[in-house]
């Protein structure tokens, strides 16, 4: 992993192979909103040929989805470049308001409170703290919603499951499913509390992001996450002992257990969260697990690995582009006529949920874990 912007930017040979992979480029047609343009401008600012202020719009408009990295033949580590560019930009033009909002968003207690209040607001929307207009507030899931656990007692080992800011607090039902699934492959999940720092690292506060990642104390246990954004960042900051839940479950042989479950007659469309597919190269594992459930039909989703627009706090900072991408994503999802759309990242789930509500669709939005656990514990409709 390079810590020098110049080492990364000079790997770009300007071939343009990344352009069509970039959602902000395909929406606008603008070179300044393309990976190649952003790399060029970051390099220009870095080498003093342009000021960071003049390139700000180009860098701000980036989702950080890293689809460009998948497309690049030359191995440009774009995600890393963006982190470095944003932290240089933050140094050149500090944004104190953003710092405060990030601090507030990454405190589970405050997040839960505001979500609970937000649920009471008309239309489930609150004023956008980082941009114009109002923004949907996710409704927290109920806790203790699953029937009593009757699976095997976990004896194979222990892992530290990251509770993070959102998973345990807004997605309690999903997170409980993750705990139960780990038990089913013999692993006892110890909760790992604290903020991983991903939102900080991705938004200009790289040092703070690193500090938070390093402050997590898994007590020597391997870290597992059920949030793609956190997992991607922790892999970068803490290395190979970090795993996404789907990797651990498939390694543990959950697919064969799933194969013995009662059939679940469902058409499932799988949306690739950017920080799973592009950030961690995880595409096959969640699909293999879902497909192992008898009765589940995985239906192809067009542009499944194109960003839905949520992208951390991008939907707050750049609501217009985020909504364009959400509409595009939701159109593809509706075209599948699936019963459920599955994804492995809380940000995507909350954002897709808003689209489902807005369109009055009957398609349910669920974390992969929830569907997998439902195969064992029963489907509640």
């Amino acid at each position, binding site marked *: 992993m390079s810590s020098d912007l110049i080492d990364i930017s000079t790997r770009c040979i300007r*071939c*343009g*192979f990344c352009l069509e992979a970039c959602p902000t480029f395909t929406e606008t047609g*603008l070179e*300044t909103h393309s990976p190649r343009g952003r790399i060029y*401008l970051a390099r220009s600012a870095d080498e003093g040929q342009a000021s960071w202020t003049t390139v700000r719009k180009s860098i701000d408009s980036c989702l950080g989805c890293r689809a460009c990295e998948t497309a690049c*033949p030359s191995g440009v580590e774009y995600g890393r470049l963006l982190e470095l560019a944003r932290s240089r930009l933050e140094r050149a033009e500090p944004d104190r308001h953003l710092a405060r909002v990030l601090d507030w968003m990454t405190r589970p207690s405050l997040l839960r409170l505001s979500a609970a209040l937000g649920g009471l607001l008309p239309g489930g929307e609150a004023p956008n703290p980082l941009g114009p207009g109002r923004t949907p507030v996710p409704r927290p899931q109920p806790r203790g919603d699953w029937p009593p656990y009757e699976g095997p007692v976990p004896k194979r080992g222990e892992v530290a499951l990251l509770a993070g800011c959102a998973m345990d607090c807004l997605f309690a039902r999903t997170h409980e499913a993750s705990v139960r699934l780990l038990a089913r492959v013999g692993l006892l999940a110890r909760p790992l509390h604290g903020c991983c720092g991903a939102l900080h690292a991705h938004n200009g506060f790289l040092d703070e992001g690193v500090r938070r990642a390093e402050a997590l104390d898994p007590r020597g246990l391997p870290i597992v996450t059920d949030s793609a954004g956190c997992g991607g960042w922790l892999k970068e900051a803490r290395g190979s002992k970090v795993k996404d839940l789907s990797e651990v479950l498939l390694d543990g042989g959950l697919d064969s257990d799933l194969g013995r479950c009662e059939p679940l007659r469902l058409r499932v469309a799988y949306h690739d969260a950017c920080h799973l597919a592009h950030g961690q190269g995880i595409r096959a594992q969640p699909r293999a697990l879902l497909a192992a459930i008898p009765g589940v039909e995985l239906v192809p989703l067009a542009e499944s690995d194109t960003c839905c627009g949520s992208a951390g706090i991008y939907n707050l900072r750049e609501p217009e582009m985020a909504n364009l991408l959400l509409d595009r994503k939701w159109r593809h999802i509706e075209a599948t006529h699936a019963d459920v759309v599955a994804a492995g990242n809380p940000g995507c789930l909350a954002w897709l949920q808003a689209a489902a509500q807005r369109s009055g669709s009957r398609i349910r939005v669920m974390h992969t874990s929830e569907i997998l656990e439902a195969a064992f514990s029963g489907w509640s409709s």
Partner: protein
Amino acid sequence: MTASGQIGRELEAVLPKERIVADTAARRAYDSDAYPIDRHPPDAVVLPETTEEVSRLVRWCVEQSIPYTPRGAGTGLSGGAMAARGGIVISTKRLTRIFEVDAANRMMHAQSGVPNLRLSQAAAPFGLHFAPDPSSQSVCTLGGNIAENSGGPHTLKYGVTYPHILQVVLVDPSGEVWTIGSRSGRAPGPDFLSLIVGGEGTLGIVTEAWVRLTPTPQCVETALVAFPSVRQATECVSAIVSSGVIPAALEMMDKGIIGALRAAFGLQYPDGSEALLLVECDGNDPERIADELATVESISQANGALELRRAQSEAERKDLWKARKKGIGAMGRLAPSIVTHDGVIPRSRLPEMLDFVYQVAAEHDIGVANLFHAGDGNLHPCMYFDDRDPLQVEAVIAAGEAIIARCVELGGSVSGEHGIGVEKSTLLESMFGPDDMRLQRIAREIFNEGDLCNPCKVIPNQKGCVEHRRRSRGVAW
């Protein structure tokens, strides 16, 4: 207000504001294409969505005497989409609609900013595809392909872009809209289409086209053969072609590429491999294709092949193609910048040409690796260097010119498929006599009076171009 701010503001009378950009970042981002050693920023960039808008823009430029440059995806390798004299870049990246796939008549109607691969994807449900397949096909646009008359790995069997274009809608350099060519493939009168295809955007802007679609072959056989020397690989290519087999693709990679692939992706080839040959045969009769590949196999053995890998599945086929498709990208990991040259030579001269390329690169102390469309003698020496070092940039230009001059001496051509652009505009005269050049100039002047449309490309004919060359060409980062 700066000149560019002024132009941006005035353009608002022609096009909605949100499709005009003229800020500092945009001007910088559009100052070059994939040819990294000749840059000039435009004053503004505009993104029209219809033919009518393009026509209005061009008329406005003519009225104001402002030069303009068409641009697609900017993957061109000869600086064609760079605004040599500033002015306006007219981008086709909002001309991205596919209007119609007429499967019964095997043709399709689309706007010029659609990426090449999307044409084939739209035709795929009908068992058809758009045959020209430049390696950049996932991004390069239909308009760019038409302008450069682009080829690709499958050009050997299916031809370059020209035979696949039926009709184009062209906004000429005065702003007038023309429909050129015919959907039936036959038009009376002079063949203007052949001027426009390959015109490098100096004869007007193509906004739409009807293209021919080709049935997608049902079976494909692919093999990758390693040879101990380029000479043996070349002799193998000649033997394959003279055996009557016409492979769909016949691509060669030299030891420079092999080394880059090894360094970047850990791809392994037999020890002592100096050249790789990728052979693909396609058609609808599985037995015939299997026979063809068997012929290729025995010819390869007779020519001293070290190893032959044959793809057994689609996944393996993609894997073999990696050597070709990822070759250039792999080189990006070796140095900050690359320039891919393009020349054509008679196939039999390949080995001596290659020796010459190595020698020139060594003399200039520049890293080089070579890719060829071996079937048609189209050579791509790819040089990697540090674009921050003025001496290296100069060396790359000098080495490129020496190589192209040698191609002409050996009875070849200055360009196979990447165009002349600004890169080779001074080399044309080494290939064409004064009469030829005069004819080309006349054609250009008839279409492009005043030379506002993509100035200084192909035939630089004004003072501003000399000025541009002096200031911008070969300037280090």
